[in-house]
């Protein structure tokens, strides 16, 4: 079976946090306890969107110690393929849904003498769970959170009032941004850096840290790539002998699954490497979107990550 174990849940609560972000809370249908998880873990939410089954990853942001419910926060993406729109527009309290067991690709390094967290916008969510985990073990942490404006900064008020000394807010609307160079300078030896936010922010923060001599091993980041919509294309699955059309708003992986072909995955965000698929034949352009394949693998035209990447051309034959 692909992906991880599944949990059947009911939507127990929907909270509009601001114009863009909504929190969804879930309870188990069978009344059992949820599995515990580690801060930074995500779950894959299955959405039955017409004929398409979407599976989008969202960071778990509830307290990892709380086994009675799970919570995620979803930012509406009006330009996306519709996963977040589906959550915002179609999901109602007491709907049945399916979640995956938690998977963590952004876990804390518990050897760290200090955890320095940098969040941008909706990138705050994994830190919500990590902060709860660290509080429980009296961990040493500090959060620097930047958002567009106070009205678009989910959870900022709660965080600041609970941790006035450890949480630092920065708002674009007030022309305040994180002074990273100064922040990184002077951090004690053994500090680990965690970044979650838009790609530009991750690149900027990682680049700064590396320039200042921070080792790669202490720099952690998570960026979920939502699969981008694109031009429809066709793919031949050679092992299962099927010709599949990939629609504009579905991913290659979703199209393969729709045809009943079992394909491996874990993160569905181009990060974990699980869905790596061998290309047998290709005439056209690859649109590689993942951050798993090395540049030279991308150039080799021999591999594709179907959870986020697409194709534009005449023929694509995959070993699947």
């Amino acid at each position, binding site marked *: 079976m692909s992906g991880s174990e599944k949990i059947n849940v009911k939507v127990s609560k929907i909270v509009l946090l601001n114009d863009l972000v909504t929190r969804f809370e879930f309870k188990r249908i069978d009344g059992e306890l949820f599995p515990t998880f580690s801060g930074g873990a995500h779950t894959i939410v299955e959405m039955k969107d017409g004929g398409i089954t979407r599976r989008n990853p969202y960071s778990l942001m509830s307290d990892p110690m709380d086994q009675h419910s799970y919570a995620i926060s979803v930012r509406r993406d009006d330009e996306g393929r519709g996963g977040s729109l589906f959550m915002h527009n179609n999901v109602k309290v007491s709907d049945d849904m399916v979640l995956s067991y938690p998977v963590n690709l952004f876990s804390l390094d518990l*050897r*760290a*003498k200090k955890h320095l967290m940098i969040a941008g916008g909706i990138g705050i969510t994994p830190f919500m769970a990590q902060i709860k985990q660290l509080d429980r073990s009296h961990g040493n942490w500090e959060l620097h959170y930047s958002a567009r404006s106070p009205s678009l900064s989910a959870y900022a008020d709660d965080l600041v009032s609970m941790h006035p000394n450890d949480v630092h807010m920065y708002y674009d609307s007030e022309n305040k941004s994180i002074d990273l160079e100064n922040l*990184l*300078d*002077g*951090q*004690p*030896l*053994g*500090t680990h850096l965690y970044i979650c936010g838009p790609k530009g922010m991750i690149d900027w923060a990682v680049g700064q840290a*590396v*320039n*200042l*001599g*921070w*080792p*790669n*091993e*202490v720099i952690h980041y998570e960026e979920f790539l939502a699969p981008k919509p694109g031009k429809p294309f066709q793919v031949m699955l050679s092992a299962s002998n099927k010709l599949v059309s990939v629609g504009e708003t579905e991913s290659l992986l979703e199209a393969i699954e729709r045809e009943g072909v079992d394909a491996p995955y874990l993160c569905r965000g181009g990060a974990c490497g699980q869905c790596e698929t061998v290309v047998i034949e290709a005439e056209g352009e690859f649109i590689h979107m993942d951050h798993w394949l090395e540049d030279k693998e991308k150039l080799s035209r021999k591999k594709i990550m179907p959870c986020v990447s697409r194709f534009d051309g005449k023929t694509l034959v995959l070993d699947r």
Partner: protein
Amino acid sequence: MSNFSFPESIKSRPTYARLEPRAGKSYLFVADAEGAEAIIDLASNDKSLMSKSHVIYIPKNTGKKYTLQLEKLNINQLYIGPSYSAAQSRLRHTLVSSHMGLQLYLSGTEGLIGQAQRDAMVAGIPHTAIQSEHRGSIGRRMQCVHCKGITEDVDIDPYVCSHCGLSLFVRDHYSRRLAAFQGVCIDAEEPGNIPTAVELYK
């Protein structure tokens, strides 16, 4: 030139490369004996480096051979000490009061490199972020797996454990946490059947 190229071995055996300049906020060198040569080489590549550096140097049996040269390098803070254990509290203090961005360079014998690496790891530097270059003696720091005693500068195989007296064969299996290679009783199955010792890498 005091470089020795170790033959390829198992994956737990440390490997070494030449020290090279890297971006950082501050620089700490720990070296013993011929390890000074690696610092001198690096300094000749990057003149500005030494003025931002703290060097902890233990000449061991090289006497004054390298100390004069080191003194001429314009090193910001140069300490020359009699032994690793004498230098250890200074090193540990330097590490805990350092900040991220510190670059650590180790050079000299495997025993020195291993022990300084261990102290640095405890202070929070990932071992893969530490540069180390072997120079000089190929003598090893060995741990007797039976009594746990450490014997320094072992250059023959088998050797006699300086603590419990067992004859031990010298493995390439290496523990960063202990900063030592593993010595295992050579005549455990047939007591007394001990081959004559040979020099390592001869």
